[in-house]
């Protein structure tokens, strides 16, 4: 009896391992985000050909959009990007601005936007687009609690992503996480600019990204900065504006000023 139960358990474990196998097989070519500790936690970076979810903390659509645009920019690597959006999301959070996208270092020429009327047609379009392996990534943006986006729907997206090798990114605004087959799940809120002169400009976009689910590793929470010119994430810098390197052949600034004062 006991032996039979162990046998059943072992066979079940085996079948689970087989189900999990494809995502394991896709491990080696992970795409580094650029943020060292996050990449370490993700074992090298974001897994392509998988589903990743980004939730906006509260209603902060701007930061989450920036973060997912960053992820899409990393994984799509100069390949076309399909962004599926609900009509309602446009009104609630504003439309995606092409100039803004270009400012983040992404190429608006590679973007095809699909304006879906509702969640169902958005899901179907995203699954369709995921089957096209000429794409770099597919972003599905869903506003609010969508009961259609359940375990079955996310499983479909995951399978489509695995079959074609295209990465699926789901952006959820004003929603709470529910169980899904996502490889990673992030909750993103805006982070403060580094302290400095209030009248002085802010720096690069900053996100407080919390990795709340990671199928193949631990979770964590980091402040990430998006480097628009290099098109990658990085550790937060201490200064909001780029700072010139200290000249090696000149005395330190403070000393120089002191010297100046002495002379006057």
């Amino acid at each position, binding site marked *: 009896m006991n032996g039979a139960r162990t046998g059943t358990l072992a066979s079940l474990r085996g079948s689970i391992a087989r189900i999990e196998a494809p995502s394991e097989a896709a491990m080696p070519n992970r795409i580094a985000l650029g943020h060292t500790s996050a990449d370490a936690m993700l074992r090298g970076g974001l897994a392509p050909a998988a589903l990743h979810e980004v939730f906006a903390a509260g209603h*902060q*659509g*701007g*930061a989450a*959009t*920036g*973060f997912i*645009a960053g992820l899409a920019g990393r994984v799509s690597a100069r*390949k*076309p990007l399909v962004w599926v959006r609900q009509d309602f999301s*446009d*009104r609630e*959070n*504003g*439309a*995606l*601005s*092409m*100039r*803004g996208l*270009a*400012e*983040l*270092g992404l*190429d*608006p*020429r*590679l*973007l*095809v*936007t*699909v*304006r*879906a*009327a509702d969640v169902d*047609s958005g899901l*179907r*379009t995203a699954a*369709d*687009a995921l089957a*096209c*392996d*000429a*794409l770099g990534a597919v972003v599905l943006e869903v506003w609010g609690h969508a009961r259609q986006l359940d375990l079955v729907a996310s499983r479909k997206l995951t399978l489509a992503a695995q079959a074609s090798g295209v990465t699926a990114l789901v952006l959820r605004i004003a929603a709470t996480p529910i169980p899904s087959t996502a490889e990673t799940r992030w909750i993103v809120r*805006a*982070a*403060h*600019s580094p302290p400095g002169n*209030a*009248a*002085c*400009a*802010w720096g690069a*976009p900053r996100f*407080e990204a919390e990795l709340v689910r990671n199928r193949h590793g631990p979770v964590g929470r980091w402040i990430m900065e*998006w480097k*628009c*010119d290099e098109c990658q994430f990085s550790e937060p810098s201490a200064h*909001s504006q*780029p700072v010139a390197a200290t000249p090696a052949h000149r005395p330190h600034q403070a000393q120089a000023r002191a010297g100046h004062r002495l002379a006057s």
Partner: protein
Amino acid sequence: MRAGLSIGLPLANARAICPELTVYDADPAADLKTLNDIADWCDRFTPLVALDPPYGLFLDITGCAHLFGGERALLQIVTNALSRRGFAVSAAISGTSIAARTLTRYSSGQIVADGAEAAAVGPLPVSALGADAAVTIGLRRAGLKTIGDVAARAPHEISARFGADFTTLLNHALGRGDAPISPRKPLPDYIVEKRFPEPIATDTVIALTLSSLAKMLVAAMDRQGKGARQLEASFFRTDGAVRAIMVETGRPVTRPEMIDRLFRERLDALNDPLDPGFGFDLIRLAAGRTEIVVQQQRDLDTTVHDNDEISALIDRIAARIGGKRVVVHLPLESHIPERAALALPAQQHLAAASAAAWPERVTGEPPLRPLRLFERPEPIKVPFASVPDGPPHQFTWRRALHAVVRVEGPERIAMEWWKQDGAALTRDYFRVEDAEGQRFWIFRDGLYESELRDEEGRPVPANWYVHGLFA
């Protein structure tokens, strides 16, 4: 007719003749709709069907009659089918459209051979020509009772009295010269169709028919090196209703599977699904617009292949949710933020969008434009600003108070005064960060002192708006 009534009889006279008469108001719109429905039904005989309001239809049956067993049989089919539905039909076939129309006015079922029009229409009264009432009355007053009488006069006499238009009409009726009819729909480049002696109604048979038609269509186009940009499937129901479903593609389609798939997507997504009723007896597939296909070598250049795949994907999505919902973006020469980009249907503009020149970003700068832009700037409440034209310290947007921690600005954007008559005000944009780190793009509408004044010249408070969200 049986009761002794005739068309054109005053209502009072009709009531006097037939007291139990039921009277309905004329509804020209409904009449026209019915005429259009009949024209839809007539599409099964020829693609060239023209309306002749208020109650006529022209069918150009050149080269079509033999498909229905000759002109006589075709005329029989049309007349019988329409009479069965309760319409009073009068039909005729002749070499010119006007002659045929003239013939239908007094009898039905005449077929006039080419060249015999003058003899056939000659004995008919002049009113059969369908000219203006004034002309008809004029002819009658001149003692010209039949068309033959008019034709016997010298043409210059007729045109001097009744105008050149009438002479042309008369000549067409007599078979001397012909005006082309103006069909309701442009003639498709290729048509394939399948008729069913027994109406079909099941989805499987419909799908099978469509795919076999797609193969026939592609074979026909392939012989001339063409691919379809616009396809239309028409489903003719046995009860006369016709449903046409159109699919457009971004690139010429040359593969039957693709046509098949596009129609499957389209049929799946119809809000009012295809209703076979008692079945379809004719399904037609037409290529409305075709293009010459340039064959490209595929095996070496993978980007060509990728582009093909993407446009195929766009076609599929567009077939299901509509072409206007799949868009690409093109830059516009405008410094007004909401007018700087144009979203255009991807099917038509994919190539233009992938070659578009967007303004370069300034290296080393943080983003100067927001990632999300509101189509309509949203008003915010600003209690006060420390200096009149300075940035606010706090603002209320969507009922939440945001304390401004960091500001950069103003960036002054003047409206395009050369395009509009000074209605829009200059905007001062500020990039602000609130206490939580959210970044907004807000602006004050109008300049203090100069623009923000009422009619008497007193300063008025400015309106503030949030226009976008930064990442």
